[in-house]
């Protein structure tokens, strides 16, 4: 492999995870850090560390010039972007390549193509992947939009073509509402994104969020089965599992084949995730988007398939052909991941930085804890509240839930409030145990 050293251009638990993968591959890991992260676990574990700027992310982890300067100073071969920050920034991928480094991920053009919602949907259509009924791309004007919703039926969502993170989305349940909301959505999109372009699509509700892990080396493309990610709060995943429960084999096969077809359509290189909405009553699935990076919830797939996704993406970036064949990918048992956040579930999930007093992590077969924590560490206020992930694996979903419950009782993080108590309640909730989960489940459950 051509990669002997990697700049870890991220922070937190994913930086720790990337360093571990580098160590396993015999690669030198150089960790960048802001002034607030000098004491981080990633900095402690890396072979070298370079400070890149003051605490606010805009001046450090999002500063492309500072990151490239660090890459040159460290003399690395490659840059791993992790997730969040610049991981799906096509200009960053281009700048890394132009600087003479390998970007661990697809090239800038692929990120650009798949990051544009309308373009990505067109790729999906070309690859024969089912898409949510709606306008194929932007609607030119209100009359065109009204004709489309007359065909697909209500309820419909009106979305900003350039939007993200749920901003600019409106739901109309009838034509009167649609006529009222369409101009509002256009005005909001124009002011938020400097682009008033809209598209419309049918609202699938209740729906489940199921995503397929893919790997590609530019010539061969495989899937590593799916993850169920419907447990969400404010569109943020809270708990993920794999495989998706009660998914008919024909649906699973078609969904995974769709993800591979989409990867092949763009000649995908690296690890990626194809997200789908699943309508359980119709047993239909629809393409949502592609994430061109490693996901927070990747350990679920690693636990049930035994494939190391982070090592795989580094090997692919280094020019190695994909060593795994589709037939080699076999699902073994069930895994659940709980995101442990520095938030108080008793106080409307108020974020809570501070010092970790004690940390006790149960150990055992099928228990994994990916985190940025150590006792005495002070969680800074500047970044995401994700402290770590508890992942539990067992032979089936019921034994996995029982093991999760037991493990959560032994997992101790004191000094700041965390979401551990929320997960302990969820793991024993009858609706969760019965698998009655959809994308609005958790918010409804929290408001009981």
């Amino acid at each position: 492999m051509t990669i002997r050293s990697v700049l870890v251009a991220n922070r937190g638990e994913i930086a720790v995870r990337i360093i571990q993968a580098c160590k396993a591959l015999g690669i030198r890991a150089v960790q960048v850090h802001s002034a607030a992260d000098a004491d981080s676990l990633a900095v402690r574990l890396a072979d070298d560390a370079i400070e890149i700027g003051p605490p606010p992310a805009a001046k450090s982890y999002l500063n492309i010039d500072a990151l490239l300067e660090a890459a040159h100073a460290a003399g690395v071969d490659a840059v791993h972007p992790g997730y969040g920050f610049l991981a799906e920034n096509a200009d960053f991928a281009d700048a890394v390549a132009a600087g003479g480094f390998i970007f661990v991920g697809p090239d800038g053009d692929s990120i650009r193509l798949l990051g544009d919602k309308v373009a990505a949907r067109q790729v999906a259509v070309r690859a024969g992947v089912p898409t949510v009924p709606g306008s194929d791309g932007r609607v030119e004007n209100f009359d065109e939009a009204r004709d489309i919703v007359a065909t697909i039926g209500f309820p419909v969502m009106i979305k900003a073509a350039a939007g993200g993170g749920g901003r600019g989305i409106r739901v109309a349940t009838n034509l009167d509402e649609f006529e009222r909301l369409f101009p509002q959505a256009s005005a909001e999109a124009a002011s938020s994104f400097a682009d008033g372009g809209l598209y419309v699509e049918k609202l699938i509700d209740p729906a489940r969020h199921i995503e397929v892990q893919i790997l590609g080396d530019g010539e061969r493309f495989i899937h590593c089965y799916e993850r169920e990610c419907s447990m969400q709060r404010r569109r943020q995943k809270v708990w993920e599992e794999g495989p998706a429960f009660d998914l008919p084999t024909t649906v699973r096969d078609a969904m995974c084949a769709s993800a591979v077809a989409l990867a092949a359509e763009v000649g995908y290189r690296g690890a990626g995730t194809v997200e789908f909405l699943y309508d359980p009553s119709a047993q239909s699935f629809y393409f949502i988007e592609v994430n061109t990076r490693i996901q927070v919830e990747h350990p679920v797939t690693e636990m049930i398939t035994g494939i190391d996704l982070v090592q795989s993406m580094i090997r692919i970036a280094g020019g190695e052909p994909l060593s795994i064949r589709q037939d080699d990918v076999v699902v073994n048992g069930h895994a659940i991941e709980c995101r442990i956040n520095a938030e108080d579930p008793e106080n409307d999930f108020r974020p809570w930085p501070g010092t970790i007093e004690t940390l006790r992590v149960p150990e055992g077969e099928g228990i994994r804890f990916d985190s940025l924590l150590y006792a005495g560490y002070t969680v800074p206020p500047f970044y995401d509240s994700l402290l770590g992930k508890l992942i539990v694996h067992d032979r089936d979903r019921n034994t996995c839930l029982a093991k999760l419950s037991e493990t959560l009782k032994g997992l101790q993080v004191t000094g700041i409030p965390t979401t551990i108590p929320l997960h302990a309640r969820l793991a024993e909730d009858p609706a969760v145990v019965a698998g009655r989960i959809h994308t609005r489940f958790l918010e409804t459950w929290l408001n009981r």
Partner: protein
Amino acid sequence: MSKAQVMSSLPGTFYRKPSPESPPFKQDGDPVSAADVIGLVELMKNFEEITADVDGKAITFLVEDGEAIMAGQAIAEIES
């Protein structure tokens, strides 16, 4: 003439503008009312508004846009 300090109860990143493209909530020297928003604090990706809490003739900022702040830090002074 007396001066009141505006403190942030939260640590995080202080912003003087509602979004990067917008003009600042207040310029140095602007008069303020108690209910006026004068800035935002980003704490772990959550944004909290900071209000002046007192009426005054002129505000002077002590912290730049996008600067890291500690809990309890004074971010502005207001002349009454």
